[in-house]
């Protein structure tokens, strides 16, 4: 095979990957979302059968319906779930940012030869199972858990705090789980800042705090944006954390989707929920993509 042919195949590989593993599943989900739930295997109609030929398939097109989407608009549960996800994801993203910024700053200001080790430590939690780590938080947060024991032993609280099985526990779980996604882009933005800019600010009369406000922080905003989107986008659709740490009243769209899919076996409803979530996240995804492109141009 010629070198040009090889190169064309190499260039085609990502496209093929995206088509097979993203576009096709997406189209399947989109198609299911306009189907009708049925007691069958698979649990929806219509099914397109190649044996019916083109005419048969066209006839079945008429059976497609937007009923699942209409249900999302009409049932408050969905609206509350989306808003619940939005609220918790926003709170968790803001907290993650507040906690990750000092982390990233400390790593970026550490001696150059120590930075790689510190970055490794920041991502070290990824080496164990996500599920096990979220489970571990149950042991920490529940009423007879470690944190309550410790606080009571210290005499700081008289009776255990009710954190486990609340929205607060979900926020804790999201902040903990996604912290590295915030630390890394922040670190990247802070690490590449020219130290002489800080010296110049100090030289021009700025106190360390003013230097941070006027130079370090504004120059790190691309990292703040990238990290916030990397946390916010998956947090919106999070299922495992609210399911394990949240209470029965914790409404998040991932959980609602799971219930529709597995408990109600209403695949069209679940698919419609997923499509709407994607549509809602699209602006955030585009913003992230833009940011990456601009970073590459520089």
């Amino acid at each position, binding site marked *: 095979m010629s070198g040009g042919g090889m190169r064309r195949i190499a260039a085609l590989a990502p496209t093929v990957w995206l088509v097979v593993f993203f576009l096709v599943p997406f189209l399947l989900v989109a198609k299911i979302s306009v189907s009708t739930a049925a007691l069958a295997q698979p649990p929806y109609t219509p099914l397109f059968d190649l044996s019916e030929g083109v005419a048969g398939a066209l006839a079945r097109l008429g059976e497609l319906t937007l009923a699942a989407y209409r249900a999302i608009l009409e049932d408050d549960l969905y609206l509350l779930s989306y808003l619940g996800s939005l609220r918790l994801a926003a709170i968790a993203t803001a907290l993650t940012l507040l906690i990750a910024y000092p982390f990233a700053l400390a790593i970026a200001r550490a001696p150059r030869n120590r930075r790689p080790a510190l970055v490794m430590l920041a991502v070290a939690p990824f080496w164990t199972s996500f599920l096990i780590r979220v489970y571990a938080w149950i042991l920490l947060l529940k009423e007879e858990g470690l944190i309550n024991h410790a606080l009571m032993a210290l005499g700081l609280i008289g009776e255990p705090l009710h954190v486990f099985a609340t929205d607060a526990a979900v926020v804790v779980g999201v902040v903990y789980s996604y912290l590295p996604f915030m630390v890394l882009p922040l670190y990247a933005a802070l690490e590449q800042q*020219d130290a*002489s*800019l800080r*010296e*110049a*600010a*100090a*030289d*021009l*009369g*700025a*106190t360390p705090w*003013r230097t941070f406000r*006027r*130079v370090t922080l*504004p*120059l790190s905003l691309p990292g703040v944006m990238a990290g916030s989107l990397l946390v916010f986008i998956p947090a919106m659709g999070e299922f495992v954390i609210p399911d394990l740490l949240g209470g029965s009243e914790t409404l998040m769209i991932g959980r609602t989707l799971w219930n529709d899919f597995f408990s109600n076996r209403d695949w069209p409803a679940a698919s419609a929920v997923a499509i709407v979530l994607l549509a809602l996240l699209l602006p955030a995804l585009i913003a992230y993509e833009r940011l990456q492109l601009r970073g590459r141009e520089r």
Partner: protein
Amino acid sequence: MSGPEGRGAPLVEIRNVSKSFGAVCAVADVSLSIGRGAFFALLGPSGCGKTTLMRMLAGFERPDAGEILIDGEEMSATPPHRRPVNMMFQSYAIFPHLSVARNVGFGLVEMGMGRDAVATRVEEMLRLVQLSGMGERRPDRLSGGQRQRVALARALARQPKLLLLDEPLAALDRRLREETRLELIDVQKRLGATFLMVTHDQEEAMATADRIAVMRAGRVEQIGAPTEIYERPATRFVAEFVGDINLVEGRVAGVEAGLARIDTPLGALTAQCALPAGARATLAIRPERLLLDDAAAQNVVAARVVAATYLGGRTLLRLAGPGETMLRALAPGAAAGWPAGRDVRVGLPVAALTALAQERA
């Protein structure tokens, strides 16, 4: 003592300042003072401690020992943002997220100056560096020379008692460098400010500064006016670092009325010399100070032309003297008059000869 920088107490006094980084001694027991209104240059090769010394004046480094006084106040523990000093960084360190005007006004805002006052002063500074009307430009749309001017305007905006310039011209191309050099001198004279420049370029120091401290390995080798540094180098290092020079080893044979007779491979030469008889000495003389075929010359030795290189306007001669000692001489005009092998009588005027003590290796 009233030196050439007289006019009351000096603005900057550095007293026995030392600074080490780990095991590396960057600045070793340096003392010097800078007069008000001076254009002072710290000159030396990279790693000589000149940048560290400047950073201690700015407050970015703290001396391990010694005192730094600026306008009579001890400063070594004062953080950079509270010093009456501003610096123009070698990289210019222009804030990339702020416009030209906001860069120049950065330090004025920190002084608590009102918005209108800042705008007026920024406009004034931009006029000073010939960037009027460029205030709204983004820094990434500026040329190298324009960035240098923004950095200068920003550093001068707060009217610092002392302006530090870290290799101010190093990033500019040659033609722009000469022009900018003149502008720097002009700005300094017009403002009557005190400038301290760090440079490794002896030509730049000579052309810009009115006083130069030559540094080597953390120590000051010599402080003086450019002509003193050039004509009367105090050490062999200064002699070799600043410009081209002939060095001849010898031994003091005898001293009489301030003039020494020094035995060298070129023969016995007369020179002004503070060294005692018997001391080893190095005689130094600039190539352009050698007198060629001049009947009235002193210290005349016979030599022969080895090679002549035309430099445009002048010719650099490589001469072999007695004992095959090589000398470099500059002659006016073209190389044609100096064929290889031609005999030439070389005079080494007493006034141009400097006797240097033999140095520690």
